[in-house]
């Protein structure tokens, strides 16, 4: 045997390069394997099924490259730095401190985790079409009180981690927690179903539970739990450190519902739009906005012209006068329309009525000029410095806020030194770098691709307008409009447009023609691609798309990959990562398809959430502690940075096409189904294991019976 003496070995440069090359290739290929499916699928679906070319293909390609690079760094960083750090604190905490200290630390960590990886932007995006008159409480939580919403989620996560630690300490089963919490939540949801205001926030509450646990929080609390369990769990403990993620997905639902109940008294009930802006409801309505100016901005950008007039006491003159004053008063304009000096003009052109335009620009000539200037949509170029700055801040904040308390506890409270500090610090650096690159990649690549496919998806079952391809035809002559007739005798007006060298027939819509400026706003349409308007097959294609997208995106989720590897490690390979990932991905696929069905057919969330959760309670009772912990935890990690934007883009596009208030609920259904699938797999595995084990005993018993005779 070759013996090595202690001390450093010098590795030659070429040998080092060889080692690095192999290492990098290995890690990159792992990530390529995890993301290829979703990317190829989105590209093929868009180009082959929907038949649309990919806009900004080069930027998207760069974005996808960055996603892979970012994931590579991020995952490596998790395993080198963040997870060993979490585990170290987990092992040392019970040795050197008392339970109250651990609980305090857990509370702080949970709260900071929520601030570090805020899901609020995601939720605000899901609720961007929420109207204050239709869902006052929901609107209030997403806008004026969004910070309180974040704090209540943070409190929920904090309490969850504290309970999780207490559970490990006393070696409690996860099952009673699930029975009590899910029972409570289902009851709460049923009660909320019958309250007009609370009804609107149930989707938000359940989604909060699904999105709170992000790709940094999950691995960290998993590692922490595993560390603690190694010190305190008993010999036959089946928990092994899992289960905290489950609690962190359930408690926030409860805290958000409680917050909603608390605020219930301070909001008016849902009403129609005109009533909302009526003077007699002014005070209650204004309470939903930060200030009067915000309400005015909302009024002009989101309400109908009738409501706008209603706001000014039913007097058009008052409104016109107000706008005239506003266009001249810079500070007021800034307060209402924000920092962009052209925002008011842009609003007038895109949304304003003729009178409103006139009052903003002052003359018809100015309006004409402005129409040509503002109405063609300007493509935004990628602002690289801004992109870098924003995403670096996100990454530093996410990892910094979470590792800071860990370091404080380690150095100040436990007075431990950092073992293999070079490796852990390099790991943390990789995590930050990876997260930064990954977020940029998501923004440039996956989000764009997801939005393009998502926006076009409803064309599978209905006609949609391609707003982005809207063009403005100047000097339009209505005499060029011709008529066509269909076999059933219906007339349809159309005209020919010359686009490039082609002459394209375009359906004529009178409303798009502005006789004053002689301009025609031409919006191309698409669909329905499968069958007639609203056909079953068209919707079936959408549901199938949702399933495969959910499946593919889940396989690429970093938090789930980390959970899968941890499960494989802890179970010494008896629960393979691939099996867990497949079970979860199929579950998420079903869940997302269910969520889309909810939006398409406007099914109340109650019907989609309560039956599966009640079924889950039953299956949980039958399952072993090991699978209950792993199965429920997978629910919390499924909805991460890859799935969420894709799901939202699709949900919102479908929602806006079929006229649904909000896109909430898909994430919640995407969380419940994987629990079912993992527990089902668990039941089967356990049944087989038990059968194999008892087979021998059974035979022996029979033999002894025969011997006895």
């Amino acid at each position, binding site marked *: *045997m*070759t*013996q*090595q*003496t*202690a*001390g*450093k*070995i010098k*590795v030659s440069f070429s040998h*080092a390069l060889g*080692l*690095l090359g*192999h*290492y990098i290739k290995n890690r990159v290929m792992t990530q390529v394997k995890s993301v290829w499916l979703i990317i190829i699928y989105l590209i093929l679906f868009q180009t082959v099924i929907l038949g649309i070319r990919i806009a900004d293909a080069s930027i998207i390609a760069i974005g996808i490259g960055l996603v892979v690079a970012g994931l590579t760094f991020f995952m490596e960083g998790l395993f*080198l730095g963040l997870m060993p750090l979490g585990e*170290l604190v987990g*092992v*040392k905490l019970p*040795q050197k401190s008392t339970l109250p200290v651990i609980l305090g630390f857990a509370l702080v960590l949970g709260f900071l985790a929520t601030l570090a990886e805020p899901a609020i932007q995601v939720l605000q995006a899901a609720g961007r079409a929420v109207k204050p008159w239709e869902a006052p409480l929901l609107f209030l939580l997403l806008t004026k009180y969004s910070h309180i919403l974040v704090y209540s989620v943070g409190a929920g996560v904090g309490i969850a981690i504290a309970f999780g630690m207490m559970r490990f300490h006393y070696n409690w089963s996860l099952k009673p927690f699930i029975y009590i919490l899910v029972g409570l939540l289902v009851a709460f949801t049923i009660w909320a179903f019958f309250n007009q205001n609370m009804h609107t926030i149930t989707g938000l509450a359940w989604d909060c539970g699904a999105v709170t646990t992000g790709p940094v929080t999950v691995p960290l609390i998993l590692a922490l739990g595993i560390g603690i369990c*190694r*010190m*305190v*769990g008993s*010999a*036959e403990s089946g928990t092994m450190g899992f289960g905290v993620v489950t609690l962190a997905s359930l408690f926030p639902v409860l805290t958000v519902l409680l917050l909603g109940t608390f605020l219930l008294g301070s909001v008016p009930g849902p009403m129609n739009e005109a009533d909302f802006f009526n003077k007699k409801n002014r005070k209650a309505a204004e309470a939903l906005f930060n200030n009067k100016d915000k309400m005015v901005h909302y009024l002009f950008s989101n309400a109908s012209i009738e409501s706008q007039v209603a706001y000014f006491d039913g007097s058009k003159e008052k409104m016109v006068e107000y706008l005239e004053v506003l266009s001249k008063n810079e500070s007021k304009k800034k307060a209402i329309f924000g920092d962009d000096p052209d925002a008011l003009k842009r609003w007038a052109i895109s949304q304003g009525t003729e009178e409103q335009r006139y009052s903003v620009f002052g003359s018809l000539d100015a309006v004409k000029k402005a129409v040509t200037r503002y109405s063609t949509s300007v493509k935004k170029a990628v602002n690289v410095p801004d992109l870098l700055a924003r995403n670096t801040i996100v990454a530093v904040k996410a990892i910094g806020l979470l590792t800071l308390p860990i370091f404080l506890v380690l150095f100040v409270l436990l007075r431990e030194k950092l*073992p*293999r500090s*070079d*490796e852990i610090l*390099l790991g943390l650096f990789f995590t930050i770098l990876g997260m930064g690159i990954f977020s940029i990649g998501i923004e440039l690549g996956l989000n764009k691709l997801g939005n393009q496919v998502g926006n076009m998806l409803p064309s599978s079952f209905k006609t949609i307008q391609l707003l982005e391809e809207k063009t403005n035809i100047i000097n339009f002559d209505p005499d060029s409009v011709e008529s066509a007739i269909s076999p059933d005798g219906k007339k349809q007006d159309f005209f020919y447009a010359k686009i490039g060298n082609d002459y394209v027939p375009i359906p004529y819509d009178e409303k798009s023609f502005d006789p004053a400026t002689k301009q025609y706003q031409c919006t191309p349409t698409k669909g329905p691609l499968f069958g007639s308007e609203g056909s079953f097959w068209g919707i079936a294609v959408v549901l199938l798309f949702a399933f495969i997208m959910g499946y593919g995106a889940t396989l690429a989720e970093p938090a789930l990959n980390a959970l899968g590897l941890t499960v494989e*490690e*802890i*179970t*010494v*390979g*008896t629960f*393979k990562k691939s099996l867990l990932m497949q079970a979860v991905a199929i579950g998420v696929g079903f869940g997302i398809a269910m969520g889309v069905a909810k939006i398409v057919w406007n099914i109340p969330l109650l019907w989609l959430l309560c039956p599966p959760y009640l079924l889950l309670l039953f299956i949980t009772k039958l399952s072993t502690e090991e699978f209950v912990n792993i199965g429920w935890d997978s629910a919390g990690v499924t909805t991460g940075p890859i799935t969420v934007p894709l799901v939202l883009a699709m949900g919102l596009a479908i929602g806006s096409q079929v006229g649904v208030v909000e896109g909430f609920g898909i994430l919640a259904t995407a969380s419940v189904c994987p629990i079912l699938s993992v527990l089902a797999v668990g039941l089967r595995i356990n049944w*087989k*294991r*038990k059968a*194999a*084990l008892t*087979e*021998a*005993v059974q*035979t*022996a018993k029979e033999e002894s019976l025969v011997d006895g005779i």
Partner: protein
Amino acid sequence: MEFKKRVSQITAFVNRNISKDILDSLKEVGVIALHLAAARSPVIEDRKGIFALLPGRDLVDDPVDIISFLVDRKTGDHVLSLIIEKGRLNLPGRGSVYSEEINLVMAHELCQENKPAPFATEKTPFQKLTGICCIVQRGQGESVARVALDTGICVPSLHFGVGTGVRDKIGLLRITIPAEKEVINIATSPYDAEVIMEMMIEVGKLDQPGKGFIYLYPLKKGIINMKVTRGEQRHAASIEQIVAAIDHIKGGIEWRRRSGTVEKKGVKRRAYLSGLADLTLLCDEGTGTDLVSVAMSAGAAGATIARLKHVRPPDSPLSEVSPAREACSMIVSDNQADGILKALKEAGAFTDSCHGQVQLRRVPKAFTYSEIA
């Protein structure tokens, strides 16, 4: 602190569903301190119908607990019988257990052998056994373990470990070399051990650099789980039942010797290593890495560190020992052992901060890639 005494080490690999019963009965007879590690045991699953046509893995994994502890030599056999009786390990498919005699060279006073009061057990027929331990890169273990399954020797057990050695001497570049290892344990009759070892070397390509390490170690006696397949039975008796019956009739397993029947691939003469010893240091978690580097400065080539759980009654003085433990197994040459022990002692391995325990077992035959070969 220095003992150099011979004690019995009992190691049981039992299905997790029955380990609780065994742990309870061990506690009853006075085995109060033991180590627990998680492992898995793959068995071949006969696939039926359309599933048989699908490509992929035909193994299923059972979660297994490795229960190991030291007892004085007098009670060793009784404890062994007790485990077989309580776990019904004489029935195929439930687990393996064996005892070996090792040297307990040095240990913290809380980490001594168990001394249960004498108790009566049923008389169980034991087999003479030899252990084979093979350490390979994570992910490579299954193919090596499969040798035991394909030859019907026994159900192997696999657990995870972390390797230290050359990797830790190249600075931060070490992250490019995976440290995760898989440790395969099998036990077989002494007549077959060398042939099986040869086959495992062949399958695991252990004659190539960086592939792994394999060694034989003597066991005293025990009973092994031979139920290597699972699935529908197509005959009046399963092959495991027939083998067990013949074992019973012949009064031993010598008749099963297969050295002549197993085909030896190639006639390469291997340069086996001999005169080695397995020096295993058990210590509190977190202290293993530092102690291993101390041992490495004293001549050890490296170590495989595996995690264990120290199980003891909650109210006993043994609670001072950390429940999270590490087993650092180092293969050293006989003449290095003393130097390493001295170095470990000086580094405080046997104080309250580490609660160390060093076991030494003979390794008559080992193999790994070496440049000389």
